[in-house]
């Protein structure tokens, strides 16, 4: 579904991705973890061609997206929903209008249908009470949830989440995790989730990819990831006090 083939990217001569290979399968949830500055956001931005690779190929459904322009680029992007690290809501539109925007601009749905869909997704992210508020008047966590609603409202095939739980309290974080998990199982979307939060990564993902210094160090399912012998992976897990018995110890009701 999404494939990176030996992708390299440098910013003014400074390499950020150095021979990056990754394959995200259709319908799976892949988590990208790694230290700050490892290139996680940069990787996501390559998937929607917000950034262009210096060399290498990025295939979406088998098609190389590097040379796309104009109409072809827009229709490629229509497959995606994207939750930005900063939510990136338009500040002069209300929460409701922000979520309605992709439907208004991309589809020919009637106002009634748009209204129904918008209310439905906002209800799912528990934002029904803040429909008329401006982004500046709501908390960071609420902005994230509104951003999430905007990303999913047009029912894309692929969802990209850039740190959906960073800056949120643990309880809300788990709610978001559940939401991502439910969306994936209900709609069968392919998801790529960038996160620092190992609890999220372990509970929602089918596979976890560890990024380190611009390459993919290890890709494996959560249980194998926990048992990994790789030093960088171990450091990353240990620093968050994630034990090898995570799945046995973590409360079942939160794991789902």
């Amino acid at each position, binding site marked *: 579904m999404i494939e990176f083939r030996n992708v390299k990217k440098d910013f*003014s*001569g400074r390499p950020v991705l150095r021979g990056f290979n990754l394959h995200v399968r259709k319908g799976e949830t892949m988590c990208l973890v790694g230290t700050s500055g490892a290139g996680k956001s940069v990787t996501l*931005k390559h998937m*929607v061609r*917000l950034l*262009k690779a210096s060399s290498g190929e990025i295939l979406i459904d088998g098609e190389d997206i590097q040379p796309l322009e104009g109409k072809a680029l*827009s*229709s490629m*992007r*229509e497959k*995606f929903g*994207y939750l*930005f*690290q*900063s939510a*990136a*809501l*338009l*500040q002069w539109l209300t929460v409701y209008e922000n979520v309605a*925007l*992709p439907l*208004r*601009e*991309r589809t020919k749905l009637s106002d009634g249908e748009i209204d129904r869909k918008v209310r439905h997704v906002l209800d799912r992210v528990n934002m029904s009470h803040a429909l008329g508020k401006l982004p500046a008047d709501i908390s960071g966590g609420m902005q994230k949830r509104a951003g999430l609603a905007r990303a999913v409202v047009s029912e894309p095939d692929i969802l990209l989440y850039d740190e959906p739980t960073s800056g949120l309290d643990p309880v809300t974080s788990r709610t978001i995790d559940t939401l991502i998990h439910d969306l994936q199982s209900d709609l069968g979307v392919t998801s790529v989730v960038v996160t620092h939060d190992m609890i999220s990564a372990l509970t929602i993902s089918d596979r976890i990819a560890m990024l380190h210094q611009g390459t993919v160090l290890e890709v494996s399912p959560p249980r194998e990831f926990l048992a990994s012998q790789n030093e960088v992976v171990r450091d990353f897990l240990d620093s968050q006090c994630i034990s090898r018995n995570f799945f046995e110890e973590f409360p079942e009701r939160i794991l789902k």
Partner: protein
Amino acid sequence: MALNDPYECPACTNLFAQWGHNTLAFFQQVGQAILLNSRALFMTPLMFRKRMRTEVAYQLFYTGIKSLPVLSVVAFFVGMIFAVQTGIELARFGQEVNVGGAVTVVMLREMGPFMTGLIIVASVGSSIGAQLGTMKVSEEISALEIMSIDPVRFLVMPRLVALMVMMPFLTLYTDVLSIFGGGVIATVQLGVEPAAYLDNALLYAENKDLYTGLFKALVFGFVINMVACHQGLTTKGGAVGVGKSTRSTVVISFLVILITGFILTKFFYG
């Protein structure tokens, strides 16, 4: 779009090479800015679409109506100042009555569009630069691109329409108010009858003066939007970057207005 991959000056120690690269980068930016606004200009027919109408209406309001208070004060006082100064000189020859013609011709031809332009740069242009700049650094522009919403249609075009429609109207307003301000001085201080002031104004001013002035205003509207939107959309580097693009919006627009104003004057009055 080209805005996303700007010309990067390679870091080189050779001074001349650096100059060369900077020159290239400069011309690339000018080209980008012109292209950006030309695309917006070709998209203006879309403003009548249902989804764009409210945005265009809001921008017209924001650019036009919201600028009236400051313009009123400036126009009135500039008219008075000009009348005081020319009055002093004309009085030496007993020609006070000609103050009407002097104020009117100068305002219609040059000062009206120029002053309106500067005020709109400082108020509307800077706010466009800051707003688009903030949107750029907070990834809102990227969010639009991913939703396949063209920022040129969604953001640049409504502002272009507002500036190009409103600049001539605001200039006309400035002209009228400053001529009125000049009239107040002529009557109160120079003892010229209001009717004589107006007659004299109409004697010297021609239709051409009005039209060229308004045409200039239209061009200034285009130029202000061009600089502000380009600076805004190419902002880099957080809050500091937004500050920089706001500043350069104002500075560059001032210069470009001066230069295009001169060129147009040469063209019409040679």
